[in-house]
């Protein structure tokens, strides 16, 4: 079995929940030069486009999804004045209120951390092969947010 590097832990698609505290610490521990940390946490809401949602399931393209998250981290590190970026997304069944996605960016200063964090989640939604099925009273619906 391949040994997972600390760098590999910074980009993951995983079935289970994640600990925000542990992930925040993972980023903070990367450098004592970090002076500002920005975070985006996406959670499962109980309505979408005018209908109720009882739960959801995320499907991902194993391999390509991880590759795209890695690209996002590397481009963020290259294009923004930041020190570290963590990008996690869950797959499988997720109940209302649970965590879905987590972006944490550490930088020397807050402005760069905020900008990079927003860019990471926007880019994730554009280029990462992940799909969402919502369970609603009207039936199961595959969501199409980016046609």
């Amino acid at each position, binding site marked *: 079995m391949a040994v997972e590097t600390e760098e590999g832990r910074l980009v993951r698609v995983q079935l289970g929940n994640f600990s925000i505290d542990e992930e925040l610490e993972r980023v903070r521990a990367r450098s004592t030069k970090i002076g500002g940390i920005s975070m985006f946490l*996406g*959670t*499962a*809401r109980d309505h979408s486009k005018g209908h109720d949602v009882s739960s959801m399931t*995320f*499907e*991902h*393209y194993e*391999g*390509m*999804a991880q*590759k795209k998250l890695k690209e996002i981290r590397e481009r963020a590190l290259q294009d923004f004045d930041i020190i570290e970026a963590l990008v996690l*997304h869950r797959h499988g069944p997720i109940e209302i209120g649970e965590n*879905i*996605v987590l972006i944490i960016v550490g930088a020397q200063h807050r402005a760069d951390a905020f900008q990079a964090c927003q860019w990471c*989640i926007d880019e*994730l*939604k*554009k*280029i*990462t*092969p*992940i*799909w*969402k*099925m919502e369970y609603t009273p009207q039936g199961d619906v*595959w*969501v*199409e*947010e*980016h*046609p």
Partner: protein
Amino acid sequence: MAQVKLFGMLKTLVAGVNVLDMPLSDGAQVKDLVDALHVQYPGLGELLHQKKVVVSVNQEIAHWETALADSDEIALLPPFAGGA
């Protein structure tokens, strides 16, 4: 014979399967695969022609002229919906 992976809502267009076996001729390109899929699965073919569904080859988004081989990892990707 190439294996074509399907994700998300696309499986509902092809009787719930998540992999299609498609024959490839020598020198085949993505557009040839799309044409063959259109014949067998018109609903799926329509989405491909409208570019609402994209083709990936070896985990990179492909163009219609991208060359294909049986050993390639080919997938059809409907619009992404990750995030929250």
